[in-house]
């Protein structure tokens, strides 16, 4: 990847400095008089800045930081300034737990906007409940807002189930009814397979087979060689970053375009079509937010433009340093900060003691498309604190990404399996 590696050093240095500055951001940036006598509101960021999920964590952190700057420029929340402390969860659960505690106990943050790592989310849930701090995570495991979550957790990102439903609903008509899934042999991959299978069957298709490969497999050919391309219309890939790249390339080498390849945004997140080469041609996938500004729905474009400018992403989806952004994910951290803003405004929250009211104000909250919520309209469902929004289906054609379809949120909801509103806070 021509952009990433030489710039990798500058990502790390930049994020250093950002982290260090944010970490010591106890000092007010402006003269006190501008801010009145109220204490600032402290937001803690628990992001995977290093390790395998770094591409998502780094941009999540940047989006959070930009959101906070923007809100402060607007005069803060109810006249109170926002402060931000970020910690690196290192794509590691033990570290995620430790940093969660540190943010809450040492830095005494009022809210935590947390990681894309589902394990970290699930481990942080009991801590949020115990310390009575509201936690926003953007990992995609379904259980985080089902049996493993609680009333203190919110998720401003759609989960595996929604993604696969959008993919199947969007694809079953246009591409064929015979689906095959190959996914990473860990929790996330199995979710991909399970959710795909469910919706394919619901929509009149057949699941021809499923095959799992361990993470980090250097060679997927053993797992692909059993496939008969004449018996399959669509292959769903449940991998991301390196494994996605490997398997896409190898599918191309083995089947040379005979089979249609699809998956969620993991197939391309953090990469460009050029990186994948000819193997990428024809791949289509579901995403939450388009890379290319032109593909954003017309009514959202003005918000998108401003949003990109503030976070530092250009119209093609690249960062200022030339790195590929994970824009498909980082809208969630941006919007997490804004849920906090709206929750405080609607409930009259003054301190953590008022969290119960805050939580109730967000349950069932319908966000309107705006600079605060540039991804579009949202529903934050009361029973499971899970957000529902529209999805995009994108495709690589002639080396470029093209949007094929918008899947409205009504088509991708599902029944709530839990009811957090019954939990006492």
């Amino acid at each position, binding site marked *: *990847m*021509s952009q*990433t*590696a030489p*710039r*990798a*050093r500058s*990502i*790390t240095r930049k994020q250093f400095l950002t982290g260090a500055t944010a970490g010591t951001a106890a000092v007010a940036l402006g003269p006190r008089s501008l801010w009145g006598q109220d204490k600032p509101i402290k937001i803690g960021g628990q992001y995977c800045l*290093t*390790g*395998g999920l*770094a*591409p998502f964590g780094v941009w999540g952190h940047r989006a959070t930081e930009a959101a906070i700057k923007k809100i402060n420029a607007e005069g803060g929340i109810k006249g109170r300034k926002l402060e931000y402390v970020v910690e690196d969860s290192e794509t590691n659960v033990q570290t995620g737990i430790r940093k969660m505690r540190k943010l809450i106990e040492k830095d005494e943050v009022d809210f935590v906007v947390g990681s894309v790592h589902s394990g970290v989310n699930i481990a942080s849930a009991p801590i949020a409940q115990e310390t009575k701090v509201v936690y926003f995570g953007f990992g995609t495991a379904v259980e985080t807002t089902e049996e493993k979550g609680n009333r203190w957790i919110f998720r401003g990102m759609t989960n595996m189930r929604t993604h696969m439903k959008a993919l199947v609903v969007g694809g079953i008509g246009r591409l064929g009814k015979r689906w095959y899934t190959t996914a990473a*042999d860990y929790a996330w991959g199995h979710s991909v397979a399970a959710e795909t299978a469910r919706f394919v069957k619901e929509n009149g298709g057949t699941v021809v087979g499923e*095959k*799992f*490969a*361990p993470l*980090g*497999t*250097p*060679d997927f*050919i*053993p*797992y692909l*060689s*059993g496939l008969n391309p004449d018996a399959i219309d669509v292959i769903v890939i449940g991998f991301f*970053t*390196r*494994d996605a*790249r*490997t398997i896409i*390339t*190898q599918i191309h*080498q*083995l*089947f*040379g375009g005979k089979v249609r390849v699809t998956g969620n945004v993991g197939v391309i997140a*953090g*990469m460009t079509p050029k*990186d*994948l*080469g000819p193997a990428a041609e024809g791949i289509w996938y579901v995403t939450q937010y388009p890379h290319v500004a032109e593909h954003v729905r017309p009514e959202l474009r003005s918000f998108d433009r401003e949003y990109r400018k503030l976070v530092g992403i250009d119209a093609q989806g690249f960062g200022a340093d030339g790195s590929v952004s994970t824009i498909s994910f980082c809208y969630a951290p941006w919007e997490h900060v804004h849920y906090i803003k709206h929750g405080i405004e609607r409930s009259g929250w003054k301190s953590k003691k008022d969290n119960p009211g805050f939580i109730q104000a967000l349950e069932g909250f319908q966000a309107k498309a705006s600079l605060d919520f540039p991804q579009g309209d949202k529903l934050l469902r009361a029973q499971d604190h899970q957000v529902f929004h529209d999805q995009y289906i994108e495709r690589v054609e002639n080396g470029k990404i093209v949007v094929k379809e918008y899947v409205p949120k009504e088509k991708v909801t599902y029944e709530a399996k839990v009811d957090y509103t019954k939990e006492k806070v």
Partner: protein
Amino acid sequence: MGFLPELVLQLVNGFVWGWILALLALGLTLVFGLLEVINIAHGALYAFGAIGTWYLARKLGSFWLSLLVTPLVVGVLGLGAYLIAVRPVASTPIATVIATFGLLFIFQHVALLIFGPNPSSVPLPIDVSIPLMGRMYPVYRLFVAAVAMVVIGGLWLFLRKTNYGTWVRATQQDRETAVAMGIPAAKIYALTFGLGSALAALGGVLAAPITSVQFNMGIDVIIDIFIVVIAGGLGSFGGTVVVSLFLRELEGISAIFFNPVLSKAISLMAMVAILLVRKEGFAVKA
């Protein structure tokens, strides 16, 4: 005859990866046979080989250059690391394990700083596929197997026929006598460590176009390397090659019938069984 094509494909593929694994494992076992050091950082040297290839492919557009240059550079790096970190504690075998563990930390993190966290790929130098039982099989992979076989064969001849090779075998049997006879044992140890590192890097160079390059890709292979080296018989040339091929073929074939977790567990348990039944593994004397 549904699964015959799949079986053939697996056998061919297992053959290819078996030879790559043999290359990596020989690098480790050569070092162990002579120095009694198990280099935990061996996988990181494999990663460096792949990263070097990626770098040269980007900068100079050539994979072939990398085939020659990268193993050499990494071999020198390995030699340097040996002199600084391993030789000072060579008198205590367990200490060398710890020292190479420290090297692993350093190597892997340096790789991260140079290469970044994201994966990348190296284009196939030979982008042709041939039909194989109804599927298309990349020719490059067959090339890889050929290169590995040639190198391993050359290595065997080298150890048998040259002065250096004789010195290595002599020193392995009785260091004191070898030194007394004027064989430069210390130099041989250092050179061998460098050679082992170069072999690991060569494996990385060959593997780079058929897998993804990432800073921590050493983790994928290091366990398999250990297992092969142990079951093949520490220090045994032939045993290592045989077990490498056996392991990859076993994995490939189990993948047809079982899910990956199970086939991984099966091959691991097969290795444990081999280890217990024949405590010396397949000690085929080279």
